[in-house]
């Protein structure tokens, strides 16, 4: 479904992605793990056109966002990226719109859906993330966990084929983390195609069909969770993580 080949990206001469190739297949949940600075968030941002690659190819459903470092025209870029949904670490909800408007704005101005239809769909999605009673609240009135669930619903409202999460719980305390993780877990049961950059190892192990472990801008290990988590290099990383964060 999504195919990335030989992605190269550097910031001010500092290489961040050094030849990444990966695929995301229909109905699959891919967890991308690795140390801070390993390039995992940059990779996800490149796939969603939030960063421009220096070289490489990104295709979704055979439609190229960038081919051998040459980007498609702006209009095509937008069309390709509409197949992807993106959930930010810090939510990035629109603070001046209530929750319902946050969910309907792009449905209306990008997909051209009618107001009633967009609102009906938005309310369904809010119910799905357990926030149907918050439709008229403003983001500033919600907890971090609630804001992130709204952000997930907002991404779902565009009917993306692949939903991407960039460390969706890193800005949340443990209690709020759980409510967001359970929403993502429910989505994985629906066989939604998802890519999740995460520090939650237990969660990655539980939900992912495939785990990608990155180190210094390359993919070091990739495969079924049990295999990857038994890789010695990954074990070292997880061991370190334990000491750093106290995650078991």
């Amino acid at each position: 479904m999504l195919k990335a080949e030989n992605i190269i990206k550097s910031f001010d001469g500092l290489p961040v992605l050094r030849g990444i190739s990966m695929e995301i297949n229909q109905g699959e949940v891919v967890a991308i793990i690795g140390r801070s600075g390993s390039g995992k968030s940059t990779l996800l941002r490149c796939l969603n056109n939030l960063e421009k690659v220096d070289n490489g190819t990104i295709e979704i459903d055979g439609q190229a966002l960038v081919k051998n470092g040459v980007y498609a025209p702006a209009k095509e870029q937008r069309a390709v990226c509409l197949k992807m949904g993106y959930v930010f670490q810090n939510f990035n909800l629109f603070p001046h719109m209530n929750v319902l408007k946050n969910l309907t704005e792009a449905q209306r101005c990008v997909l051209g859906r009618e107001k009633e239809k967009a609102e009906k769909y938005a309310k369904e999605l809010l119910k799905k993330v357990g926030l149907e009673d918050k439709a008229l609240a403003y983001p500033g009135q919600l907890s971090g966990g609630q804001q992130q669930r709204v952000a997930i619903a907002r991404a779902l409202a565009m009917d993306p084929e692949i939903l991407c999460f960039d460390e969706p719980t890193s800005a949340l305390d443990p209690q709020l983390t759980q409510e967001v993780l359970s929403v993502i877990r429910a989505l994985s049961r629906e066989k939604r195609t998802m890519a999740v950059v995460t520090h939650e190892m237990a969660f990655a192990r539980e939900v992912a069909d495939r785990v990608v472990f990155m180190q210094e801008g390359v993919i070091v290990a990739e495969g079924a969770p049990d295999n990857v988590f038994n890789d010695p290099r990954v074990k070292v990383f997880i061991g370190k993580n334990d000491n750093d964060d106290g995650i078991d």
Partner: protein
Amino acid sequence: MVMKFFNNPEKLWNLVKILLEGLSVTGQIFILTLVFSIPLGMLVAVGRMSKKWIVRGPVSAYIYIMRGTPLMLQVMFIYFLLPRILPFKFDRFPAAIFAFTINYAAYFAEIFRGGIQGIPKGQWEAGQVLGMKKSQTFFRVLLPQVCKRVLLPVTNEVITLVKDTALASTIAVTELMSLAKKQVSSSSSIEPYVIAMVMYLIFNGVTEQLCRLAERKLNYYQ
């Protein structure tokens, strides 16, 4: 002090009537300047933030000149000197509007630039990942937030503008200040100035209340 107006209701009323005419011209300068300079300021702000130096450079120079020289000089320059360079002549009133507009647009531009740059990059990115065009993100996501952020500094400028309109008197536009000056010299009394002062104060009182109303309206989110 010898009173010439305050002890004579009929003369006072006549004076007030004359000055009210001036106040109405002042009001016109004020409103027209805002109507032109706010959109122009937004355009200038966008130019000032351009990645192309060929746009950013001249725009920066323009802002530098507008903020770096006295408004009074700019008003006189446009009315007296520009017709010598350009093949056409401004009337007094449009010359004043033009001078105020380009001056205030420079100040507004810097306020808007601050407002736009103060909005987290994530708001642009959120618009982008939802498939919005840059223009859609700007008008639907950024601009409403910018309006809230710039309201207080803009209020400041607007209140200054009420008083700056008096500079139109340097090219003899018949606004409040020049009419008051005329009345003072013909009557040898400073009472017309007192009345003009009160009129400016009332004008600004109303302006301030309107800005406060806008502030309350934009308080629907924090």
